[in-house]
């Protein structure tokens, strides 16, 4: 009996050392409970199954400890970085929305082309902001174990199109049309996202409301005759583009709020 108590004491001390591999927060919270449970488990196994059972228990608990400690460490180290990416994505969406509103009003001014084209790289930046926003959104989706569906890829294609054409915008007026097609694709991507989200009933939240409205506004804005028939309907286009910008900003705020849900699923 004396040898059993020595063994248990040694085992408990060793187990407490192993518990230090967990992240500090987990260690501080569950250290005592885990050590106490393991000691009780060891006593029981030693009494009922002897030394061989005790060795078996140590092996299985040790392997389980290594696996879960690795998972916890991974969570602690990667989640803050991913959270930052989602935050960056949401801020980009807000900025992108603001830029869209700004551009909408420049579009309404009589000399909008000259005015907007003087701000070099604004188009390229708009595309980049959209890409970053979508990257943040994708990170959020992946972390929360949701699938990235077709609509997302279409949106990504639209944003990429905007970014590439945006590079040439200040020097080539013809690129403007290509840029607007990028906006069309982005809008269509949002529309697909909203439809699939509603069908799956998995995202019936602000994101879907945003996506539906944003898709409608972006697509409708591009379909208005203003692009093809001079500046007759410029103010309509400004109105819709502004609203689209607002929905982008709402999307950014929703993503910023949703960031709190980031957890490693079990």
């Amino acid at each position, binding site marked *: 009996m004396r040898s059993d108590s020595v063994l248990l004491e040694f085992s408990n001390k060793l187990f407490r050392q192993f518990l230090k591999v967990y992240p500090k927060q*987990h260690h501080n*919270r*569950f250290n*005592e*409970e*885990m050590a*106490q*449970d*393991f000691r*009780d*488990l060891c006593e029981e196994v030693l009494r009922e199954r002897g030394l061989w059972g005790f060795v078996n228990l140590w092996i*299985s*608990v040790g392997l*389980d*400890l290594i*696996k*879960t*400690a690795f*998972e*916890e460490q991974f969570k602690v180290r990667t989640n803050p970085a991913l959270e930052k990416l989602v935050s960056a994505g949401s801020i980009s969406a807000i900025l992108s929305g603001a830029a869209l509103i700004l551009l909408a009003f420049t579009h309404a001014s009589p000399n909008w082309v000259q005015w907007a084209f003087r701000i070099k790289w604004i188009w390229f930046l708009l595309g980049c902001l959209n890409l970053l926003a979508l990257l943040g959104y994708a990170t959020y989706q992946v972390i*929360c*174990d*949701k699938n990235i569906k077709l609509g997302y890829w279409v949106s990504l294609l639209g944003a990429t199109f905007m970014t590439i054409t945006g590079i040439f915008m200040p020097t080539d007026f013809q690129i403007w049309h290509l840029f607007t097609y990028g906006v069309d694709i982005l809008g269509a991507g949002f529309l697909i996202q909203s439809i699939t989200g509603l069908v799956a009933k998995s995202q019936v939240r602000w994101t879907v409301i945003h996506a539906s409205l944003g898709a409608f506004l972006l697509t409708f804005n591009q379909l208005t005759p203003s692009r093809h028939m001079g500046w007759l309907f410029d103010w309509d286009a400004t109105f819709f583009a502004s609203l689209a910008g607002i929905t982008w900003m709402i999307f950014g705020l929703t993503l910023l709020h949703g960031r709190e*849900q980031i*957890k*490693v*699923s*079990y």
Partner: protein
Amino acid sequence: MNTENQIPENTLPLTPAVFHILLALADADRHGYGIMKEVEARTEGRLLLKPGTLYQAISRLLETGLIEEVPESGDEKVSRRRVYRLSTSGRQAVIAEARRLEQMVEQAYGKNIFEGGKSSFAPVS
């Protein structure tokens, strides 16, 4: 009212370990070791929760609000063990998961994969 609305997003389906932990707390508040022994007894030793897995799951369940820590009373302060209980959303989650599993089993019966029907599931005496 749809009670499943109370279940936090992304919690379903539950892993077997989490399902058994919630089930262990369905009829009584228990501490970690109590959960471990209840699961072992109920599954006739087929599922042995080790401390690492158990407290990792407890940590997640506390984060998502599916379980809660029972506030300590004066007497319990002698023990360092914390007692856990099922929250309302935890109860909804375990019910939803049980229904999901039931549907899956029903589908398996529908395919007639058991030669003796449902009775073939009965323990051999």
